[in-house]
């Protein structure tokens, strides 16, 4: 028989393991290890992938975990058979929920309660026997051993010899052998594995340094002396334990005895609890859908009956009837509670979801295919994603918890993995890079893989500028190996799992940093574990809309947001002008530029826009042909007349995934489920060979239905060309609803809408500074924070003036902001010291109120007030109180420091005369220049980015803001080499640029930082 390893940690031991479960399995396979256990510390997160990977290569996978008992030492627990799995999850849950968050411990009582069906190994030098021996607490060992034997018996408790070649091993092994002999416990051999291969040690050691917060040169007790915690070949284990052959024999015997638990893909779906008496869930769902269909389709309801029957039969056959009832119930709760929501994603391909009020997209009228959402062929759990008003999403989650019980509901986890920036920051710190340099480097990393960064080093100016590039490359090489490994567990923002039986038998639960209970699996793994997820997402745009609508309704009770017409001319005109800053999903420079070329004047244009501005269509060169056809500049043709009904709404272009499915069904007679499988294969860019096989099948089926082979081939090629870029139409249509409506609000109710946007921040593409410039540009007066006029959030004052609230100040929580309003004295606050007397406020918060001018109306000399609080004026030695009224630029600097935006004016405004004198135009003036003309301007740098391009070249897009608006700019690949370092990393945010005007903005020719001249007070905070 092959080798065995019962004690192996993966990267899911978070910074205490350096290989993924799959890497461990691959290496075990290579080393002919036939039985492998995964024993992460207090964690089963790696188990689903581990079981899957092991089953693929025929390795017997044993599930386990390493725990710490009281403060005594570690114990490795193994699950001997399926039924005992729940004992391990319950044991871990009890320990994790009852211990401090980062220091879990298992109490003896817990071990007694849940340990009896498990197998235990005594661990390495940190183990429950070796550690007391090493720490000189030898007298405790007999009692510990006796308690362990009492729980596990002598058949299921093993004394572990770990082959790690450490000083003193021989003595420890002799001692452990003595314990085994005197207690009649068997010895067992392990490698206490922390990484798959010996060469992974360097990464593991760096991860240890990240975990312990030390530099690589520093010595620490948690650093490993050698690189011997890898998966060793079995013969190495046999030879190392030559004096203890029984350990080898026992290990192999135990491997024979343990079983892989059968826990994957066993459904634990919830049942809907409130069925009317005598009605099964299928009948009840059908009745609800019927009722909903009547409401949605009215007199046309008969037309949709067969579609509804079709959907219901798939839902029933796949076992998701109760799931739909659960989601319906959640949507109903939100509606009744007045919580704004909308279903999105492929669920909007379902007429049933539409009739149940879960989504607002009429899948029937749009001819959306249900099979894009779920099909018998796919056998996957459907995902129903619903966006809720961000402020009220927790109410919905709480409703679900109350209804199904805390033991049956928990939040899904996310594994926070190392990405390039984090890897550079953390590894750089460990490797001794100065913090300032690291910060600049991390900020300047391009959106490329680390491999590409290293190989294209000389093409990236902001990296090239670093003097010690060899050292940096070395660090990036380490970063490359850590990218993708999980670092810690987090909370999935919207994912709730629901389970029929108590979740404790499926997954351990633990506290998240936010203090809510999460399971140990992420959204992919919960599906493998047979759990169902509800995606209750939060959308701040709904918060903004809710506030906007309430403001409008206060003035116009007849206003009905839900019934806005889809054909408001003014709204489309505004979008056509690229004037969409603040509009949901349509405000980015790329969307605004598209609108100026596409000239949207109907609903379908919005749906198409949302699908077009994605990396796929841009890289696939789909955008321009689409625009040309939409504008009538290119003929709309179809390869076959049967394609016309499918592609007419996108002018013959395959834009949506649903269209690929429809083509395969219509032309080649694929069942919709088969067609979706075809779409998915195409989308994931499979091998040339697979594509050819698919093509043959498509052609065969199409020609059998009378399509000529030439046409079938051409259609297949068209599908292949676009399938990987196609977007989910249902999702686009769902988002288009909100996009259009927010455009409508912006056009017709800008004051109320800007108020909503400001109060829902952070949201959208642009920072508040941009929103304020936009608001002013539309004639909305902005008033600064005033100690006696402001509320906690922004408010509309008389005549539509927008007043900024206290919560816009950095470091001011909601509580303090509210307190300033609630405790405001009759007659108002007259001096900051009054606040100090009445409220718990820190000195710097009080100073900030003065610095942003909150007291300007009662005492305009800010300097004097500050000195009153903590300076010369307070000491009382002066015969005359010091005072000074600040200048315009000084006031603005404090605005930017404290709020991040100019309350009275944008940063560039005070320099306008000087800029004019020196020949710089405003961004607004530049927009009026004819195409091809040169111009120059100075502005505040916003969002420089290097999106993927078709050619793969690095091109930069950025925006420049001044008091007149925003200018979009593009820096070519060649000039990026020259000027890129001004845009990324530690940059000066005020830039002077010159360039040639193009329809989409400025094609940059030169960039330089622009320094505010002598009077100046330095750079604005970034």
């Amino acid at each position, binding site marked *: 028989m092959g080798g065995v390893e019962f004690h192996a940690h993966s990267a899911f031991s978070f910074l205490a393991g350096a290989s993924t479960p799959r890497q461990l399995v691959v290496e075990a396979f290579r080393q002919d290890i036939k039985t492998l256990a995964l024993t992460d510390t207090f964690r089963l997160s790696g188990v689903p992938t581990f079981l899957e990977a092991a089953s693929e290569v025929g390795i017997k996978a044993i599930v386990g975990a390493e725990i710490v008992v009281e403060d005594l030492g570690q114990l490795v627990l193994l699950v001997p058979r399926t039924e005992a799995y729940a004992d391990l999850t319950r044991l871990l849950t009890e320990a994790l929920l009852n211990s401090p968050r980062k220091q879990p411990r298992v109490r003896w009582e817990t071990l007694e309660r849940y340990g009896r069906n498990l197998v235990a190994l005594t661990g390495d030098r940190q183990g429950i026997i070796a550690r007391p021996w090493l720490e000189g607490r030898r007298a405790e060992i007999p009692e510990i051993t006796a308690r362990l034997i009492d729980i596990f018996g002598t058949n299921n408790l093993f004394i572990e010899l770990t082959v790690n*070649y450490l*000083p*003193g*091993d*021989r*003595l420890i092994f002799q001692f452990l052998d003595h314990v085994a002999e005197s207690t009649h416990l068997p010895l067992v051999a392990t490698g206490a594995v922390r990484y798959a291969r010996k060469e992974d040690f*360097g990464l593991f050691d760096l991860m240890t340094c990240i975990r312990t917060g030390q530099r690589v040169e520093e010595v620490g007790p948690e650093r*490993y*002396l*050698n690189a011997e915690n890898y998966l060793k070949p079995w013969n190495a284990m046999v030879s190392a334990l030559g004096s203890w052959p029984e350990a080898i024999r026992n290990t192999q015997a135990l491997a024979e005895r343990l079983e892989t638990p059968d826990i994957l893909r066993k459904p634990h779906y919830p049942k809907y609890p409130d069925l009317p008496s005598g009605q099964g869930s299928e009948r009840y769902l059908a009745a609800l859908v019927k009722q909903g269909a009547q409401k949605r389709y009215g007199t046309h309801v008969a037309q949709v009956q067969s579609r509804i029957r079709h959907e219901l039969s798939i839902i029933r056959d796949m076992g998701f009837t109760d799931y739909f009832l659960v989601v319906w119930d959640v949507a109903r709760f939100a509606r009744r509670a007045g919580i704004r929501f909308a279903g999105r994603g492929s669920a909007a391909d379902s007429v049933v979801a539409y009739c149940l009020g879960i989504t607002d997209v009429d899948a029937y009228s749009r001819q959306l295919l249900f099979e894009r959402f779920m099909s018998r062929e796919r056998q996957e759990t459907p995902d129903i994603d619903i966006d809720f008003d961000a402020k009220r999403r927790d109410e919905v989650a709480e409703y679900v918890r109350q209804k199904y019980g805390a033991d049956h509901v928990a939040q899904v986890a996310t594994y926070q993995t190392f990405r390039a920036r984090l890897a550079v920051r953390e590894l750089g710190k460990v490797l001794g890079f100065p913090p300032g340099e690291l910060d600049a480097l991390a900020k300047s990393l391009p959106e490329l893989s680390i491999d590409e960064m290293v190989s294209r080093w000389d093409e990236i100016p902001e990296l090239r500028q670093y003097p010690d590039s060899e050292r940096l490359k070395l660090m990036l090489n380490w970063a490359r190996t850590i990218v993708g490994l999980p670092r810690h567990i987090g909370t999935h923002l919207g994912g709730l799992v629901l389970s029929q039986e108590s979740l404790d038998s499926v997954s351990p639960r633990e506290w998240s940093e936010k203090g809510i209970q999460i399971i140990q699996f992420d959204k992919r793994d919960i599906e493998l574990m047979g759990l169902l997820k509800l995606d209750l997402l939060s959308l701040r745009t709904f918060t903004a809309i809710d506030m906007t609508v309430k403001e409008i309704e206060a003035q116009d009770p007849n206003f009905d947001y839900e019934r806005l017409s889809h054909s408001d001319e003014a709204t489309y005109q505004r979008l056509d002008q690229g004037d969409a800053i603040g509009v949901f999903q349509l405000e980015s420079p790329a969307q605004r530029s598209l609108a100026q070329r596409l000239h949207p004047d109907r609903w379908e244009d919005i749906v198409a826009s949302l699908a077009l501005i994605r990396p796929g269509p841009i890289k696939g060169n789909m955008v321009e042909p689409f625009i040309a056809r939409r504008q009538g500049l290119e003929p709309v043709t179809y390869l076959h007349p049967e394609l016309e009904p499918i592609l007419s709404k996108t002018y013959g272009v395959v834009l949506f995934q649903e269209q690929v499915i429809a083509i395969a069904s219509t032309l080649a007679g694929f069942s919709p489920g088969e067609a979706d499988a075809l779409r998915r294969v195409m989308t994931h860019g499979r091998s040339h060979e697979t594509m050819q096989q698919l093509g043959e099948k498509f052609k065969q089926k199409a020609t059998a239905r009378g399509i000529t082979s030439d046409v079938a081939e051409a259609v297949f090629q068209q599908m292949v060309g676009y399938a990987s870029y196609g977007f989910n139409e249902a999702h686009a249509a769902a988002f288009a609803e909100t996009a259009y409506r927010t455009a409508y609000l912006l056009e017709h109710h800008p004051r109320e809408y800007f108020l909503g946007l400001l109060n829902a921040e952070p949201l959208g593409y642009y920072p508040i500074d941009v929103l304020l410039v936009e608001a002013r540009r539309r004639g909305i007066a902005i008033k600064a924070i005033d100690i006696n006029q402001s509320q906690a959030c922004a408010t509309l004052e008389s005549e539509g003036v927008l007043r900024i609230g206290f919560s816009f100040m950095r470091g001011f929580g909601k509580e303090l902001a509210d307190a300033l309003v609630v405790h405001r004295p009759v007659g108002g606050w007259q001096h900051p010291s009054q606040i100090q007397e009445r409220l718990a406020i820190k000195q710097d918060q009080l100073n900030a109120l003065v610095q942003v001018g909150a007291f300007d109306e009662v005492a305009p000399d800010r300097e004097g007030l500050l000195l009153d609080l903590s300076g010369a004026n307070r000491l009382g030695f002066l015969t005359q109180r010091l005072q000074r009224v600040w200048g315009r630029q000084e006031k603005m600097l404090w605005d930017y420091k404290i709020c991040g935006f100019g309350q009275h004016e944008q940063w560039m405004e005070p320099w306008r005369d000087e800029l004019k004198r020196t020949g710089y135009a405003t961004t607004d003036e530049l927009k009026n220049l004819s195409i091809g003309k040169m111009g120059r301007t100075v502005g505040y740098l916003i969002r420089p980015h290097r999106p993927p391009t078709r050619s793969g070249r690095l091109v930069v897009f950025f925006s420049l803001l001044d008091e007149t608006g925003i200018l979009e700019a593009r820096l070519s690949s060649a000039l990026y080499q020259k000027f890129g370092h001004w845009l990324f990393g530690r940059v000066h945010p005020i830039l002077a640029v010159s360039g040639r005007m193009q329809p989409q903005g400025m094609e940059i020719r030169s960039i330089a930082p622009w320094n505010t001249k002598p009077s100046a007070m330095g750079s604005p905070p970034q």
Partner: protein
Amino acid sequence: MKPLEKVWVRSQVPYAFVWRQQYVSIVRVMDYWRDIGEWWRGEPELWFWRIQGQKDSVFELACNPQTHQWWMFHVYD
């Protein structure tokens, strides 16, 4: 660490060496471990043996398994 000129090895385990021109026969291996050193500076992994020589003398020998170089690491009087 002083280089050892001559070490006799069987199955990767030393059994005799020359130290200060004296032949030392290894009576017992008392302990054995491996140390990765300052790997980030390119230091190699070393293998260590604490051994008992004839006349009860105790030594620690170090070896680079890649180059088969040997050193005297410690001498216990």
